[in-house]
């Protein structure tokens, strides 16, 4: 079965950045269940049918005058406020999303700056074959 949207993952030293983040942040299985559910919905329906699934574009904390207009966060209201950042495309804007970096919101503030996600997005644009892989769940 082909899904409407393919979900790619940025590769951090050859490993899925989201998988690495889940492990390093010691995200609970309950929160991981919520995150995976949201990613499945994104693959099945994209953004249109599901208000609140994605938030953004996100403004950079470091460069407050500049909105990173391509970066969104996937909103998960779990035991912790998971907000992994992603972008539409960036190769096929009408058929894929790429998970770029894990993030957690505490007191309304993200623990990762969106500028880091934008750097990764640029890397993917320059070399999509080497910097990301499709999640097998959404192939």
């Amino acid at each position, binding site marked *: 079965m082909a899904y409407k949207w393919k979900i790619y993952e940025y590769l951090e030293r050859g490993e899925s950045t989201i998988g690495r983040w889940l492990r390093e942040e010691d995200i609970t299985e309950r929160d991981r269940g919520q995150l995976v*559910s949201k990613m499945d919905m994104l693959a099945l329906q994209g953004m249109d049918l599901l208000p609140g*699934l994605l938030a953004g574009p996100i403004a950079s904390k470091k460069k407050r005058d500049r909105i990173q207009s391509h970066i969104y966060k996937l909103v998960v209201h779990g035991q912790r406020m998971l907000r992994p950042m992603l972008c539409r495309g960036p190769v096929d804007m009408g058929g894929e999303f790429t998970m770029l970096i894990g993030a957690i919101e505490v007191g309304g503030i993200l623990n990762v700056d969106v500028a880091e996600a934008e750097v990764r997005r640029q890397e993917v644009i320059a070399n999509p074959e080497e910097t990301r892989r499709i999640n097998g769940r959404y192939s």
Partner: protein
Amino acid sequence: MGAIAEALKRELATPEPDFAEGYAESFLNTWIAAQIKVLRLQRGMTQDALAAVLQTSQAVISRSENVNYSAWNIGTLKKLARAFEVRLKVSFEEYGTLPDEVERFSEAVLRKDKRTEDRNLLHAPMAQVARNPENTIHLVPMPKSHLGIANGNKNPGGDIAYDMAFPNGNNSYPGMPGCAYPVGSASRQGGDLRATG
């Protein structure tokens, strides 16, 4: 079965319940929020219009349509069901049914007809008649000049005939190829209304 359902079947089978519970609860919230939005749009309602029906604010409707909202109560859902003219079904399900439900999740699945337009509620014989294209009634606008008038009269003995307008048989109408309109009249005879002429 798709890759999501295959993977989910394995993940839901793990001994610890946490992943399964987190996934299922998130999917439930997503389902309810998305269906409220889909049903509202299916009925051509704005958030303001739905809020007016429920005597609440647009912000409450907007919040209800957010996939991250989780503080549902049955009373509110019942009110929404009444506003949409559908029934509310709350059911406990086995985890094994979840993967297929997830795979089928789509706007088409979420759309539900209101009770007054639910074709499944027609009586069976009427439903068959309605599904036969030959029994379809077409309402076609036509100019007065295309109409003939059958004169009415009152017959001795109690029969009453009525003045009625019929399409002139010499005219044809767009979308109705091969459809002939007889010019005639109708009269009430012994309680029955009969077409004549």
